[in-house]
C-alpha cells in the first residue's frame, strides 16, 4: 500500500499547492492602481511609457523598425500608434503643463508626418489591402478612419495650445466628414468600401465636439441626431451594444467586438454620458472577464460567438483572451473609473505582457507600438474630455 499512499499524497500536495499559488499569484504582479493611473499628474507607468514613445520620435531608425513591424501585419496600426500618442500627449500636457513644450513638439511632428503621408500616398496608405478590392460607395472616395483620427489629433493639439495653422485644416476636415456622413441614412461615412465603423465615426464626432469648443461652432443638433439614429438603427439586439461595423445603408456587418466596444464607450462619454455608461456596463458583462485576481477582455461577446476579424490579434483559446481587446479594455476601465477591473487588468499586463524597462523607458514585449500607445492613453485619459465638457457647459450657460 505504500505506492498508492505516496501517489495520493503527492497528487494532493500538488493540487493544494496549485490552488494556493494560483490564488496568490496576482499579488506578485499587482503594483497598485496608483502606479498605473493617477487622478492628477502622471503615474509611474505613464512616465515610463511616454519616455519610450517620445524616444522613438527622436530616433528615426528605431521608429522605422517599429513601423515596419506593424505595417507588415496591419497598416492601420501605423496611424493608430501616432493618433493614440498625440491624444495621450494632449492629456499629459493638461496634467503636466511644465512639460507642454516637449509634448507639443512631438504632437506637431506626428501630425505633420501623417498629413504628409496622406498627401504622398493617398487614402489607402493606412488601410489593409482589402480596401482596394471594390470602389467606395461615396465618391470621391475618402477614408473616415484617417479623417476622424487626423481631425481628433488636430483638435487635441489645439485644445492643449492653439496653433493657427491647424484651424483651417481642422475646419476643412470636419466639413468634409460631416457632409459625407449626412449622405448616408445612418449618418456615417465609410472607412473601407461600403463599410462604416462605429469606432471611426464616433472618433469623428468627438473631433466635431472638440472643434465646436475651440471655434465656437455648434453641431449639437447633428450630434443629437446621430445618437438618436444609433440607438434606433445601430444596436445589436442580443447584447444591447452598438454594432462594430455596418454598410452605408445601415445593414449590420459585424456585431459588437472587444477591440472596438471599449473605445466606443469612452468616446460616447463626450456626447452622452448616460448612454456611454450603459454601453460600458454591457461591455463589462459581455467582454470583461476576471479570474484569480487577473482580468482580460474577450474578442467576442460572452452570450454568443461573432465572426472573427482577419486583422485581429491572436486570441488565446479556452479563456478567449484577446490581446487587442484586452488592451482596449484599459481605456474603458480608466474612462469609467472601474478601479477593480483596471487593477486586475494591470496585474494581467505585468504578468503576461512581459514588461521591459531600460533607462526609464518601458515597453511591453508582447505588445507593439500601437498597443503601448493605447496603454499610455489609458494611463492619462480624462482631462481633455473634462475640459471639452466644461467648455460645452459654459457655452450652454451663455445662450
Amino acid at each position, binding site marked *: 500500500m*505504500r505506492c498508492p499512499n505516496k501517489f495520493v499524497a503527492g497528487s494532493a500536495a500538488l493540487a*493544494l499547492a496549485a490552488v494556493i499559488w494560483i490564488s496568490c499569484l496576482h499579488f506578485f504582479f499587482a503594483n497598485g492602481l496608483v502606479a498605473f493611473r493617477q487622478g492628477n499628474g502622471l503615474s509611474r507607468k505613464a512616465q515610463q511609457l511616454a519616455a519610450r514613445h517620445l524616444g522613438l520620435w527622436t530616433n528615426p531608425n528605431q521608429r522605422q523598425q517599429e513601423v515596419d513591424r506593424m505595417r*507588415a501585419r496591419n497598416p492601420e496600426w501605423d496611424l493608430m500608434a501616432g493618433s493614440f500618442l498625440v491624444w495621450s500627449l494632449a492629456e499629459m500636457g493638461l496634467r503636466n503643463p511644465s512639460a507642454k513644450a516637449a509634448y507639443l513638439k512631438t504632437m506637431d511632428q506626428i501630425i505633420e508626418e501623417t498629413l504628409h503621408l496622406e498627401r504622398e500616398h493617398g487614402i489607402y496608405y493606412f488601410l489593409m489591402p482589402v480596401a482596394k478590392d471594390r470602389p467606395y460607395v461615396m465618391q470621391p472616395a475618402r477614408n473616415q478612419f484617417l479623417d476622424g483620427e487626423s481631425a481628433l489629433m488636430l483638435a487635441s493639439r489645439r485644445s492643449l495650445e492653439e496653433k493657427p495653422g491647424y484651424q483651417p485644416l481642422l475646419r476643412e476636415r470636419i466639413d468634409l466628414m460631416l457632409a459625407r456622413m449626412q449622405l448616408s441614412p445612418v449618418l456615417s461615412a465609410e472607412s473601407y468600401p461600403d463599410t462604416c465603423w462605429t469606432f471611426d465615426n464616433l472618433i469623428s464626432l468627438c473631433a466635431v465636439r472638440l472643434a465646436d469648443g475651440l471655434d465656437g461652432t455648434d453641431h449639437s443638433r447633428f450630434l443629437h441626431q446621430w445618437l438618436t439614429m444609433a440607438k434606433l438603427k445601430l444596436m445589436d439586439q442580443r447584447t444591447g451594444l452598438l454594432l462594430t461595423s455596418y454598410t452605408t445603408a445601415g445593414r449590420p456587418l459585424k456585431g459588437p467586438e472587444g477591440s472596438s466596444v471599449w473605445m466606443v464607450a469612452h468616446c460616447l462619454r463626450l456626447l452622452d454620458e448616460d448612454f456611454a455608461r450603459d454601453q460600458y456596463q454591457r461591455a463589462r458583462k459581455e467582454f470583461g472577464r476576471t479570474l484569480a485576481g487577473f482580468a482580460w477582455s474577450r474578442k467576442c461577446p460572452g452570450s454568443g460567438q461573432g465572426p472573427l476579424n482577419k486583422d485581429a*490579434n491572436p486570441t488565446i483559446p479556452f479563456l478567449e483572451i484577446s490581446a487587442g481587446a484586452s488592451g482596449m479594455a484599459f481605456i474603458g476601465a480608466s474612462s469609467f473609473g472601474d478601479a477593480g477591473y483596471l487593477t486586475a487588468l494591470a496585474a494581467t499586463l505585468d504578468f503576461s505582457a512581459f514588461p*521591459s524597462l531600460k533607462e526609464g523607458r518601458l515597453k511591453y514585449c508582447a505588445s507593439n507600438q500601437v498597443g503601448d500607445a493605447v496603454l499610455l492613453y489609458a494611463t492619462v485619459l480624462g482631462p481633455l474630455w473634462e475640459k471639452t465638457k466644461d467648455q460645452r457647459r459654459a457655452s450652454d450657460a451663455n445662450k
Partner: protein
Amino acid sequence: MTNKSIKPPSAARSSGWISPHSFLSVAVTLSVFFMLVHLVGFREHTAFLSGTTGAVGVGTRLSTFYGVIYILLYLGCVVIAPILVLAAGMLAFWQKFLSPDKHLP
C-alpha cells in the same frame, strides 16, 4: 518475490517521481532553462502575441517559435515551479510527520 517486484509498473514510475527531491529538481530545471532563454533575449519574441515579430532579421515563424518557447518556460518558472516547491514542502512534511511509512525502518 519481494514487495518491490510486485508493484505495478505505473505505480513504480509514479512513486519514483513523487518525492520532494524530484519536485524540487523539476522546479530548478525549469527555472534554469527559463533563465537561459531570458538571457539570450527570447523575451522580445513574445511580440507574436500582438501579431508582430520580435526582432528585425528573424522570420515570423522562427520568432513565433522562440516566443512560444519563452512563454512556456516563463509559465514553467512563474507558475509551475512555485507549485512544485510548495508541493515538495507539503510532501516532505507529510512524509516526516503523517505518513504510515515513517515508522518503517
